[in-house]
């Protein structure tokens, strides 16, 4: 029992329960002293917020900082050692690899949860009429599906970046290991709070939470706001850490243009996350305050304007889309050369196109508002800027194609998912221009065409690359390979099912099926297509279930991975053993060539640095 109570996760949960109780009690107490009747909403909001703080105290997130505040010293992050075994994943570890895996586990859990929400409402949509669930529960589910998966994606990206970036650039850890752990653990209570939204009345706004609807939605809306607010913090902290790590902690000789391309993608992503996430936190906080304190930011009756919210919201939420996809595109560029045995074509152009997408991504938000009733003269300029995204994205596609051209391709599971990612993301990209062009968007906006389009971009830009990355780096984490046969079943089941699903969604969308509807008019003739889409969605879910089984079983029973199993030039494969040891490289390495010179005989990317160089190279890592 005592051992159980020393696990960070458990003490965190206890802290969250206490914090929530304190928050609710505090408000109820104050109101009771003032002789007022208890009020649920303010108490719940304060409870949720203090609950998250309570979790962070419970898990030990503030311990070292409090120690420093007292003027006492703590150990250096480099001296940190985890408990051996699986237990380390349940506690407050400072090792970037452990934190990466923790992010991954939480992300996959939320993915399963968010996917399950989709299965429930897809079952409802298989037929016209309401069969299984109420209208309100349906509406809650679509919003939950959206936001739970967005948080899952953000965590999945953090998982990949945290685990891979220090390994790829030859650092011992992230720049700020304590901040890193803090950022991860913040996401845990935030995830608990967002799930709590279902049990506190839900909300009927979709994930966008537009007021005035969100200003009058049930209490679940507030839980949603609180959760997104803190998950946003987690994202900002993580982004800051990654930027510093990439800029300051690269191996000797690794100038920016010799960095692995994934590091460029993470850099671009982190720049967006660091500078834009505040806006979504702010916009949700403003609606929350409108509800709690009557501040009429978005209430026309009080001089507010509901369109203001949409501008604030999309100013983050559009760039956020690039946060979701850029790391995935980086994974594609990272894995392609390994499996086609050729250099990445146009490395500098691919690297710069990530920054280009990030930059242009900031100037396109109002394309979500072409029909919103914003000033009409804004529509044409935003159409131009939106379509401009096609240019850097095109560079990526053409470069991948040129990389594949004449390549000696090997079809291991990671490669299959990389190819799937390119094709699916291509479909997502090509269905973009009709939405970005105002005139055709007048028809398509808020239809299932949009649903099909963004599922293509997110699967192509995130899900497929994530699976590719997991199959590829899993041996580095566990020392064992995932089962190749199950991996191939996963791929060959998921890809066609997924394509059928999104093609179906786009077809009904073009014909006039609106987004976010619990039921549809039988006269429009959407029933057969919707039925097929539902079947396809269940097949996608089945394939992911196979993936989960593979993930668990291979950890114990997978084929042992020895050495450089992918014949990669990258240091984590060519130098490190599997699983990767604590604090990564025992001896620093020098970068002596380009990262992707496959096919250039005798060339090397990295070589172990001579011993005397160790002292100059060592850089401190301070939390």
């Amino acid at each position: 029992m005592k051992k159980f109570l020393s696990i960070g996760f458990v003490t965190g949960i206890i802290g969250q329960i206490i914090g929530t109780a304190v928050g609710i009690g505090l408000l109820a107490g104050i109101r009771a002293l003032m002789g007022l009747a208890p009020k649920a909403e303010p108490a719940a909001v304060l409870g949720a917020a203090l609950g998250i703080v309570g979790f962070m105290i419970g898990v030990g997130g503030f311990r070292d900082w409090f120690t420093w505040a007292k003027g006492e010293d703590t150990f250096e992050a480099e001296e940190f050692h985890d408990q051996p075994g699986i237990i380390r994943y349940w506690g407050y570890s400072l090792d970037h690899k452990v934190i990466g895996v923790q992010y991954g586990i939480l992300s996959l859990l939320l993915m399963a949860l968010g996917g399950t929400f989709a299965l429930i409402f897809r079952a409802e949509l298989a037929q016209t009429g309401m069969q299984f669930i109420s209208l309100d529960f349906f509406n809650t589910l679509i919003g939950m599906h959206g936001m739970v998966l967005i948080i899952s994606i953000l965590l999945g990206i953090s998982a990949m970046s945290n685990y891979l970036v220090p390994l790829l650039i030859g650092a011992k850890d992230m720049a700020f290991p304590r901040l890193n752990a803090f950022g991860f653990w913040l996401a845990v209570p935030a995830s608990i709070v967002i799930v709590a939204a279902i049990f506190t009345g839900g909300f009927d706004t979709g994930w966008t939470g537009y007021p005035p609807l969100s200003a009058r939605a049930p209490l679940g809306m507030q839980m949603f706001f609180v959760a997104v607010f803190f998950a946003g913090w987690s994202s900002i902290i993580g982004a800051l850490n990654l930027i510093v790590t990439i800029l300051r902690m690269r191996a000797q000789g690794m100038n920016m243009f010799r960095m692995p391309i994934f590091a460029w993608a993470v850099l671009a992503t982190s720049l967006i996350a660091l500078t834009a996430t505040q806006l979504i936190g702010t916009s949700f906080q403003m609606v929350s305050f409108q509800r709690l304190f009557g501040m009429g930011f978005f209430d026309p009756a009080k001089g507010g304007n509901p369109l203001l919210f949409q501008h604030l919201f999309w100013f983050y939420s559009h760039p956020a889309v690039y946060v979701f996809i850029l790391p995935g595109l980086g994974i594609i560029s990272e894995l392609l050369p390994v499996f086609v045995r050729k250099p990445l074509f146009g490395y500098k152009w691919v690297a710069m196109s990530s920054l280009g997408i990030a930059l242009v991504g900031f100037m396109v938000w109002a394309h979500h508002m072409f029909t919103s009733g914003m000033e009409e003269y804004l529509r044409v300029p935003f159409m131009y800027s939106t379509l401009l995204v096609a240019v850097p994205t095109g560079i990526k596609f053409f470069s991948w194609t040129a990389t594949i051209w004449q390549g000696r391709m090997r079809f291991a599971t990671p490669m299959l998912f990389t190819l799937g990612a390119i094709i699916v993301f291509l479909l997502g990209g090509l269905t973009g221009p009709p939405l970005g062009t105002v005139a055709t968007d007048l028809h398509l906006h808020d239809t299932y065409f949009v649903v099909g389009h963004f599922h293509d971009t997110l699967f192509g830009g995130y899900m497929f690359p994530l699976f590719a990355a997991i199959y590829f780096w899993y041996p580095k984490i566990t020392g064992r390979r995932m089962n190749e046969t199950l991996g191939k079943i996963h791929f060959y089941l998921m890809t066609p099912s997924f394509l059928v699903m999104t093609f179906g969604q786009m077809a009904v969308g073009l014909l006039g099926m609106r987004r976010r509807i619990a039921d549809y008019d039988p006269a429009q003739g959407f029933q057969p297509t919707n039925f097929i889409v539902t079947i396809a969605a269940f097949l996608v879910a089945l394939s992911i279930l196979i993936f989960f089984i593979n993930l668990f079983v291979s950890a114990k029973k997978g084929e042992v991975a020895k050495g450089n199993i992918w014949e990669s030039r990258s240091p984590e494969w060519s130098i490190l053993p599997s699983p990767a040891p604590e604090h990564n490289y025992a001896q620093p390495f020098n970068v002596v060539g380009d990262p992707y010179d496959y096919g250039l005989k005798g060339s090397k990317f990295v070589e172990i640095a001579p011993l005397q160089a160790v002292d100059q190279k060592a850089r401190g890592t301070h939390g």
Partner: protein
Amino acid sequence: MSDSPAPAENKIMIASANPLFRKGLEKMVLGRYGKSTIVRATTTTSETLELMESWQPDLVIVDYDDKSISRAEFLHQFVAGDLPMKVMLVSLQASGAVVVYDRRTLTPAQAQDWLSTPQLAPQTEALISRRSFSMKHFVFAGVLVLVLTFLVDLLLSTTRLLPVQASLQAQPIDRLFDLEIIAISFLFSLIVVFIVYSLIVFRRKPGQEEDGAYFKSNNPLEIIWTIIPLSAVIGLSYFGAITLGQTRQADPAPLEIKVVAGQWFWRFEYPEYGIVSDKMYMPVDQQAKLTLTSMDVIHSFWVPEFRVKQDLLPGENLVRELRITPTLIGEYKVRCAEMCGTSHAYMESPVIVVSQTDFDTWVQGELAAIGTDPAARGERWASTNGCRSCHSVDGTTSVGPTWRGLFGKTVELMDGSFVVVDDDYLYTAIVSPNTQVAKDSIPNVMPQTYKDSLSDDQIADIIAFIKTLQ
């Protein structure tokens, strides 16, 4: 940046006694690295060694099959120098096999391997055949791109992708869709054909262990595929802007219809005639100017057959406008396209496009129907103000309490007290819905705006209507 990687080789030396080898490679090198590259050629061992020493090229291309250049002497000088230099061994014998060594990373085993392989007689045809091999694939894939583009476009343009076209505004929009479909078909085919072709033709065959062809960048190519999409994008935006302009063309004398949305109903007011209706009647081929406003949350006006869409915002200063000219007589539905709460899915109302004569008849009928019976008027106000979307009149339970049998009933309120439903209670329940909420209802659901949007006479009419529902 001081430690940036070496620039692309721009001093290149070609060593071969074979003139075809020298010329062929020189052309290839200039083609790949651009005109800024200086290429010099040597034909004998001594000439080669001399130039290597005096000129210090970045890259030496050596004819691997040429016996007249001594490998041992060359290698000796190559490994002795300390300036960065690479050597590329090109063998035309082994159908254009290429090996590149860097002076700094050359291992003794590689040097041995280099010296011991027997030299063969030159065969220039292989170089030419290798280039045409690459060219052949390129042309072949290019043809496939065109074929697939045609097929995809044929498939998409023969499938019924859009609903019936029923407005003047839909016509330019549909033309733009056609243009976009052509562009999508082409780009899809371009990428997919080259990838799939590569997968099939160049994939690793069993037993093959060597890497793929070594080429890593081509700036002119990158610039081309930046500029072409850029101009395509500007072109598409231009057509998009023109089309948008066409959908917004305003007639000087449109039919004015005020569209009011609320949770979850549509109301259509015809100020010219003093008519309020829950169905939208439109005369064909006459432009309607819709002024759009919402009573509560954001809704969106969309008739898929008309294509155009516009959100309705709450607030007097946020009234928006939409112009629609129906072109096809028929019955359609306006469907709310912005998430607006519980019954969003069902927020649909008929939109009926009729001939001008039929429209006039409808107007006359509506004006005559307003009538003198308060209960009949109340029934109209109830349906045109959205009451009926939450309150049934046949006893079924909906979002709000049913009106059948409501009058005279005793109701338990949220605070536990009981009240008899009479005129006063109903009046309060309409103008201030949160004052006395019944126990099994949810507060804050019913709009609190009826005290402004309904006159006291209209409320009295509605109460008279409720009284008849026993």
